[in-house]
């Protein structure tokens, strides 16, 4: 298959785009080209409708009302836990905890499992390509406990140096937390292999699935990860909601994260007993509307031609890398063999932010900077990149416009004395 051919797959992009009303918007009077999907995805109309239907027709607090609306809202909410279970292929819906997003999920595990098991002199292992949200919570834990944060290094292409792992996992390692797919480089990490190595030494593994959940089919039983987290807003759902998956036997042993209503079994001034999992970790009235809309996003993903969508994303990636790399002055950052549809690049002698703003004036939405992964930029000795991240609703024609305008940006912004 040539990397330059268009429309190889039978995936019907034009039809899919009709489901996303925002894709018809204009930016400065020009057709919007949305290539900032790694920051947040756009939402299909059904997801937008799910939120408004909930507030228009059955808004009520759940699990406590005896009335019609509360029953209806409770049923809709409870159904979503089963949808997530099915979506991630977990053993039980009890293993699914609703959180605000991946960041909260990582903080939850670091504050509960981490506080329980990591002590002075112990080690927590992460990778060189973590998002800040999978660094800082572990750093805080290590500082509190007098433990050490260790890092699996990466090579110049942006791939983990797997040979190093055997030396980095020691008797002191208490938990390993790895990003499944890098938000700034697109690298898909061999998490299954890391998990197997960790389990051989009895160490649990947390997988940050913020980027991977929309770009791959997740099976937590096949991965055998101990924890997995994702954010709804990066996979067609609303902001402010996400899920933590944890193996039931681990979740049951963990202390609660926050105290409040819903997470208790009984309360007196002397003693509180906690609810069963997953409710033990869900204090307070949950984000009902967004949980329901997350369920709709999962329905959408599971009912669409997912295989076609993922193949289309892969073709978009190859097409963009092929054409961007042909432009004089473009250097691709992150050239791992196994990549999701994220292309990061730098321009010779041109500031990434200036180029990003140039693209913005043309209606093209990209992100520039360190993408909340400063250690990656330090490792690669660059201040930041320009990142275009694609989702299945993007087109080859949009990439043509990007490529054309990257070339124009270089011509416009190149230093005048050069």
């Amino acid at each position, binding site marked *: 298959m040539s990397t330059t051919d268009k429309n190889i797959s039978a995936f019907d992009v034009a039809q899919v785009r009709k489901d996303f009303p925002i894709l018809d918007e204009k930016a400065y009077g020009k057709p919007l080209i949305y290539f900032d999907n790694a920051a947040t995805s756009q939402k299909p109309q059904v997801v937008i409708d799910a939120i408004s239907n909930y507030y228009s027709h059955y808004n009520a607090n759940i699990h406590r009302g005896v009335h019609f609306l509360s029953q209806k809202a409770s049923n809709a909410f409870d159904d979503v836990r089963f949808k997530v279970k099915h979506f991630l292929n977990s053993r039980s819906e009890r293993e699914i905890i609703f959180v605000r997003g991946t960041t909260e999920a990582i903080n939850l595990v670091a504050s509960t499992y981490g506080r329980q098991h990591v002590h002075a002199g112990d080690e927590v292992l992460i990778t060189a390509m973590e998002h800040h949200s999978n660094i800082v919570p572990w750093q805080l834990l290590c500082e509190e406990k007098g433990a050490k944060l260790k890092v699996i290094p990466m090579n110049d292409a942006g791939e983990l140096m797997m040979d190093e792992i055997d030396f980095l996992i020691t008797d002191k390692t208490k938990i390993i937390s790895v990003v499944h797919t890098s938000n700034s480089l697109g690298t898909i990490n061999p998490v299954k292999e890391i998990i197997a190595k960790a389990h051989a030494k009895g160490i649990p593994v947390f997988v940050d699935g913020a980027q991977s959940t929309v770009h791959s089919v997740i099976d937590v039983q096949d991965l055998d990860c101990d924890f997995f987290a994702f954010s709804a807003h990066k996979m067609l759902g609303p902001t402010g909601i996400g899920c933590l998956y944890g193996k039931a036997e681990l979740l049951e042993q963990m202390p609660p994260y926050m105290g409040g209503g819903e997470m208790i079994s009984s309360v007196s001034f002397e003693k509180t007993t906690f609810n069963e999992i997953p409710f033990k970790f869900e204090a307070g009235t949950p984000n009902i509307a967004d949980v329901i809309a997350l369920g709709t996003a999962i329905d959408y993903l599971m009912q669409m031609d997912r295989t076609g969508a993922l193949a289309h994303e892969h073709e978009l990636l190859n097409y963009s890398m092929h054409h961007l790399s042909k432009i004089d002055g473009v250097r691709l950052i992150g050239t791992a063999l196994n990549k999701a549809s994220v292309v990061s690049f730098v321009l010779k002698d041109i*500031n990434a*932010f200036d180029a990003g*703003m140039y693209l913005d*004036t043309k209606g093209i939405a990209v992100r520039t*900077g360190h993408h909340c992964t400063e250690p990656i930029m330090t490792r690669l000795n660059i*201040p*930041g990149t320009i990142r275009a991240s694609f989702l299945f609703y993007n087109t080859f024609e949009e990439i043509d416009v990007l490529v054309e305008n990257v070339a124009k940006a270089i011509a*416009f912004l190149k230093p005048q004395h050069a």
Partner: protein
Amino acid sequence: MNSIAALEQQIVEDFELFDEWEEKYQYIIDLGQKLKPLATEYKIDDNKIKGCQSSVWLHAYNVADKIFFEADSDSTFVKGEIALLINVLSGQPAEEIISTELGFVDRIGLRQHMAQTRANGLAAMIKQMKLYALGFQHKTV
């Protein structure tokens, strides 16, 4: 030397020639490319204002009660913004710099682009210019 208000008015009038964000962007880049580079002796960490997207180096000195600024950035767009600020503030009396509200940033439509890139250094730079003015004012009083 014109007053801050008069210099701001001139910038606002210059920008009234542009309808599109694209044209404003190109004009600011042009200003950035023409800004005199800061001498390397002043491009030091002590003078650095670190933003999320770019870094700014700001050097200030006074001649009598007037404060002068020179600055640089790794971003040409930010250098263009710097050129606008220097044009308005450099050479003004300290008390004028401290009390000005710099309405032109809003009036030429730059504020919306500042918000989208949280800290391209401009907001931090205005604050730092005022702090310098305050520092010099106390020294000279």
